[in-house]
């Protein structure tokens, strides 16, 4: 996983609430056995006509937003399925940061595992950033994870909160499994205790 430190990039406005995972990446594109290549189908139904032509009115089909690395959206972003294909599609397109008033829980978890920073900000602040994101070539935000600030095009700073453990993992590009395996001895002793206390709990053998 790539570390996330600071990012200065074009922010695209997506003023929609409840952007669900089927919108981010429809199920028909989940038949891949890889993590990459999904960017072409990010927001497929919003982005393309049925015949495959781009819809010119969709923001990511417009300059400079084709190069956007930050997305501004409204409430409950990423609701629905647990598919990690949603953050994979965002990442493959180039999105490294999504800013919204709140996120669905599983999607929120999944973004961190892929080096994407989800930032929760109150709706009023999202409205301001949404206005910034409509500035075309000036829709440029800087996200500084260490300082926990978003710097607006006018230089104003917006502070955001983030879980310290997740911040640490993102800043250093650390993989969760490696972290957890530092506790392997504790997992061993937990399992030994469970085998005694819940001896009735069978394993699955086919």
């Amino acid at each position, binding site marked *: 996983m790539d570390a996330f430190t600071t990012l200065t990039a074009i922010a695209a406005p997506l003023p929609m609430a*409840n952007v669900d995972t089927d919108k981010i990446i429809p199920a028909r594109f989940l*038949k891949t056995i890889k993590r990459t290549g999904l960017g072409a189908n990010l927001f497929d139904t919003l982005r393309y006509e049925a015949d495959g032509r781009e819809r010119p009115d969709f923001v990511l089909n417009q300059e400079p937003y084709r190069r956007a690395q930050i997305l501004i959206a409204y409430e409950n972003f990423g609701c629905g399925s647990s598919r*990690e294909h949603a953050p994979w599609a965002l990442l493959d397109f180039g999105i490294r940061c999504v800013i919204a008033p709140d996120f*669905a829980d599983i999607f929120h*978890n999944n973004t961190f595992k892929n080096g994407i920073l989800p930032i929760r900000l109150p709706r009023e602040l999202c409205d301001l950033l949404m206005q910034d994101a409509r500035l075309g070539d000036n829709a440029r935000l800087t996200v500084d994870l260490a300082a926990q600030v978003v710097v607006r095009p006018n230089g104003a700073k917006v502070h955001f909160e983030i879980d310290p*453990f997740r911040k640490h993992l993102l800043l250093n590009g650390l993989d969760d499994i490696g972290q957890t395996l530092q506790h392997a001895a504790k997992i061993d002793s937990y399992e030994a205790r469970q085998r005694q206390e819940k*001896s009735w709990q069978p394993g699955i053998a086919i």
Partner: protein
Amino acid sequence: MPQDKPRTLFDKVWDSHVVERLPDGTCVLYIDRHLVHEVTSPQAFDGLRTAGRRVRRPEATLAVVDHNIPTSDRSQGIAEEESRIQVETLESNVAAFGVPYFPVLDPRQGIVHIVGPEQGVSLPGMTIVCGDSHTSTHGALGALAFGIGTSEVEHVLATQTLLQKPAKNMLVRVDGTLPPGCSAKDIVLAIIGRIGTAGGNGHVIEFGGETIRALDMAGRMTVCNMAIEAGARAGLIAPDETTFAYIDGRPFAPHGAAFDAAVAHWRTLPSDADAVYDRVVTLDAAEIAPMVTWGTSPEAVLPITGTVPNPADEPDEARRAQLQRMVEYMGLIPGQKLTELVVDVVFVGSCTNGRIEDIRVVAQLVQGRRVAPGVRAMVVPGSGLVKQQAEAEGLDRILRDAGFEWREAGCSMCLGMNPDKLTPGQRCASTSNRNFEGRQGPGGRTHLLSPAMAAAAAVTGHLTDVRELV
């Protein structure tokens, strides 16, 4: 371990699975059962291989194929290349890593959330995860069950744990007698209509109250299945005699003295009488009517007696735009009666309503009736064993005679990953769980409802108040 404060069912299951609590409150949480399927696992196994890791506890893991397999005859293999590759990848992965697996031609194969409880793999008090959001289904047994992404699938395969922070507790209490024509599906749709699709974000919902207690296990699974549609991390219901009777005798459940020991433990799980919840929502079952969704979010739901809302009545601009898009996508006219909506397809199945109890309800309603002209109606059993049971009861005959397709088990048209899809503009009465744009096929229009309501729509050809047929 003495406890200072009264605890909820969720607190108890959580506490007993904490391997270690890190200084910032993140917990290394032990996972008892990991269910795996073909769509969200290939990249996880690939990650293990790259890192040279093994599956820590294959005997706590069960793999099935369900999401992308065809529901027509499968004895000749899978024609669609990408689906076949995904299934073959799962088969080589379970062989390489020693994971128990029900292949497509095994009668025990089916939708992962039907199979787990059916086999006794999912038990009260367990932590259960799967790379699928509807894992909340297993909470009906009194387990803490939730969906995870593929990175977390890899994490569980490698460590049998997850890094998690505890959720908040929400109680949704439903009391009173459910009116005729209503079922568990109507209860959960009414709950989502009340609290919204983000209403449960950050919470685990415990469903309680006398109406929930009176549900059979199939109904409880339907309710917990859709907890995720309310945004909840998980949904659960306290285990009781109904739960224990359901589990007794299932293949992978404990048997004999072990079962008795298990039940003794399971009886300690229900929330303490004075447990405190962060949020409580109450519903009166007597006020619930047969429900149907009209829009492209599960919260866009109304009683079947309702009419299509007018977006112009919505004061908030973003919300008004969302409603407008829903009305247009769904091909509706504000003020139109929901019962006027003509359906092209009726889909009975999914992890929400693909159990034998659901199929019985449909068969009973359509017996002696015919699917309306022009309607394609299909029943997709949730597992091979559900299919066998239905056939033993003669339900397949009743359904076929009425004009329904009787298909093989799988997720099917719930998410349109296999050939069972809507075509653009088609309107579907569906017993599944999500009505997002394009969910059942690009341009498809989904109305979520109960099995009884689906049967009613099949025979009349339009959305119908099932109470007029019984």
